[in-house]
């Protein structure tokens, strides 16, 4: 029985310490509360039992003592002999327990019974003033008091002993009554605690149901933050959900923008292309045909550049949110960009120069995004400026710089201020290539890298466009 209880408790404690992550909260709480109630109830019951017995013992022992004292008080020496006149009142108090039997014996100084049951024998002969014994009499347990009285008179000198015993029925009944009411109190308190616990669990979990309701009743495309009042313990959860949704929202918005942009930007050149091809198929004049074909070729080239940029912009926005930053040597970015620009679409070598420092110039970032930004600036330099174009990597204070310098006329101030907004073209009236997406990509990359774009006049002539990044402090080694 006991070992079973111990095993149950061990299992319960174990499952509390290492809870199964998917176990119901209600069950976990119910388990811990019932363990608490069981252990507490057992403790209180044991205590009540001990206390009840003790209280009943003390009360009835006093009655025994009173009765024995009355007998002793009535003992006297007459003519050198001990005379005991047992008063009726001595047993009146004991008679308050009607079901119990009372026995007595008075032992003289020589150990002989003066009066009472001979068979009432106390286990030791030591002569204490007052002593209590638990004995058995006629097969029934009894409580016995032994009270001594010493006579020191000329006629008689010695000690007599008064033994009074009583069966235990009334005192057991009292003990049981005391224990019973204590246990009743424990049960009542336990039950009310359980009810309170259930209410507490229910009210603690209610905010979760509120969150659930808020989710199930919202529109699938609604990614606005949750507006549900929750207790402070749940605030981090709700905040995490809201952060996640805002990221999702940003990505959706990006995708939507991209689709809108792409539709807008792709349809026009495709329409032109179709119209031109249709015209060309019906053209019989070889001169007009070749003009038409040249136009188609130019259109298809700008279309492919546009597709590239739209896709790359989407890629970069996606990477800004998702790619882990590493240490990147800006010289490598410049080198790899230069490799892609060494030959132009006409097959001619381009005048592109590299001006790199001897030691590595570290920045924390995504190498692909940085290269894409650099490519767009170099492309702009070739389209809007004059070669030779120089790629410069330098360190200025705690900033690192990747700059593109050309020998052209520079940039009108108005365009400079708006540079980087989508669809802002260098010269809106000109027919030259330029979708405005290039600088938008550059701005996205700079934003993700805490960088800035600076336009400044180049040394002698032309424009120097600098991407300025915070240097990677931990990467200053060679």
């Amino acid at each position, binding site marked *: 029985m006991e070992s079973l209880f111990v095993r149950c408790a061990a299992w319960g404690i174990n499952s509390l310490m290492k809870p199964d992550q998917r176990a119901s909260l209600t069950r976990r709480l119910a388990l811990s509360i019932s363990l608490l109630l069981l252990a507490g109830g057992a403790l209180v019951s044991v205590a009540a039992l001990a206390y009840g017995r003790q209280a009943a013992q003390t009360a009835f022992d006093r009655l025994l003592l009173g009765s024995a004292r009355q007998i002793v008080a009535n003992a006297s020496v007459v003519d050198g002999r001990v005379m005991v006149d047992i008063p009726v009142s001595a047993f009146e108090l004991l008679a308050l327990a009607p079901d119990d039997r009372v026995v007595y014996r008075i032992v003289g100084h020589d150990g002989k019974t003066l009066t009472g049951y001979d068979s009432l024998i106390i286990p030791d002969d030591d002569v204490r003033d007052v002593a209590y014994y638990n004995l058995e009499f006629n097969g029934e347990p009894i409580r016995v008091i032994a009270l001594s009285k010493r006579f020191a008179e000329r006629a008689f000198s010695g000690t007599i002993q008064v033994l009074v015993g009583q069966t235990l029925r009334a005192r057991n009944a009292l003990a049981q009554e005391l224990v019973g009411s204590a246990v009743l109190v424990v049960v009542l308190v336990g039950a009310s605690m359980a009810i309170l616990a259930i209410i507490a669990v229910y009210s603690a979990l209610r905010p979760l149901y509120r969150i659930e309701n808020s989710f199930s009743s919202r529109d699938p495309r609604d990614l606005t933050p949750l507006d549900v009042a929750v207790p402070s313990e749940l605030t981090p959860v709700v905040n995490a959900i809201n952060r996640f949704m805002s990221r999702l929202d940003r990505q959706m918005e990006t995708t939507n923008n991209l689709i809108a942009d792409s539709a807008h930007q792709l349809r026009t050149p495709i329409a032109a292309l179709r119209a031109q091809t249709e015209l060309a198929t019906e053209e019989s004049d070889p001169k007009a045909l070749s003009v038409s074909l040249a136009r188609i070729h130019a259109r298809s*080239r700008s279309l492919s550049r546009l597709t590239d940029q739209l896709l790359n912009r989407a890629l970069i926005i996606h990477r800004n949110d998702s790619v882990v930053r590493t240490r990147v040597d800006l*010289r490598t970015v410049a080198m*790899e960009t230069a490799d892609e620009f060494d030959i132009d679409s006409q*097959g001619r070598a381009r005048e592109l120069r590299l001006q*790199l420092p001897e030691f*590595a110039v570290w920045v924390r970032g995504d190498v692909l995004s940085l290269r894409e930004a650099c490519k767009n600036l170099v492309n702009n330099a070739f389209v809007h400026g004059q070669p030779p174009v120089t790629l410069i990597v330098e360190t200025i204070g705690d900033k690192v710089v990747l700059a593109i310098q050309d020998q052209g006329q520079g940039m009108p101030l108005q365009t400079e201020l708006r540079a980087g907004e989508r669809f802002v073209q260098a010269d809106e009236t000109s027919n030259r290539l330029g979708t405005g997406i290039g600088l938008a990509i550059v701005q996205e990359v700079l934003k993700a890298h805490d960088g800035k774009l600076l336009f400044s006049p180049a040394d002698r002539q032309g424009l120097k466009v600098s991407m300025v990044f915070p240097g990677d402090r931990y990467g200053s080694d060679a």
Partner: protein
Amino acid sequence: MRLLLVEDTADVAEAIALSFARVGDTLDCAFDLKQARSSLSLQQYDVLILDINLPDGSGKDLLRELRRERNTIPVLMLTARLGIEERVSSLDGGADDYLTKPFDLRELQARVRALHRRSPTVRETFIEFGSLVIDIAGKTLSCNGEELTLTRREFSLLEALLDRRGRVASKEHILGRMFSFDEADVGTNAIELYVSRLRRKLSGSGVAIRTLRGLGYQLVDEA
């Protein structure tokens, strides 16, 4: 030039073939890896133009096979993938250059020709760089008309730097040009020695060799 094009899109392949034929080059077309392998085993090509996505596998596998067999044919990869990550993996796989689709035929021709020029079998005969005139065939170097004498190793170092003039020549590239395969255990430290010797000989010419730590060397005209 004799070229092999591995490309499965018929009209793209046809356009490329015609454009090379117009300037007098011979271009064979393979539409998958199987045809490409048999063509390569039958014929010696100057440059291989290799698409990545092919019906029976990836062009990168063929490239890896070739390089494992120590075939040093210059390879230009064509890719239509988004993202330039492809670039890194294909260049690591042993490609010499790459071009993203869509591209202009003239740019393709120029890149193929540049690869061909760089390959060890065919070289430009004269290169001018700053005040230097380099006669590749005659292995002589002159500065402002004055002849400078270089050892064989120094000259191949100069050639390696000239391959990448205006760009950066990596130590690996230089090592590959200066030493043959059986001398491969020559460390990159040896390069530093030759660079300092060549630097001394070029002093006063206005042409300098810049050291870019961690990247390689760059030949620059400082005049």
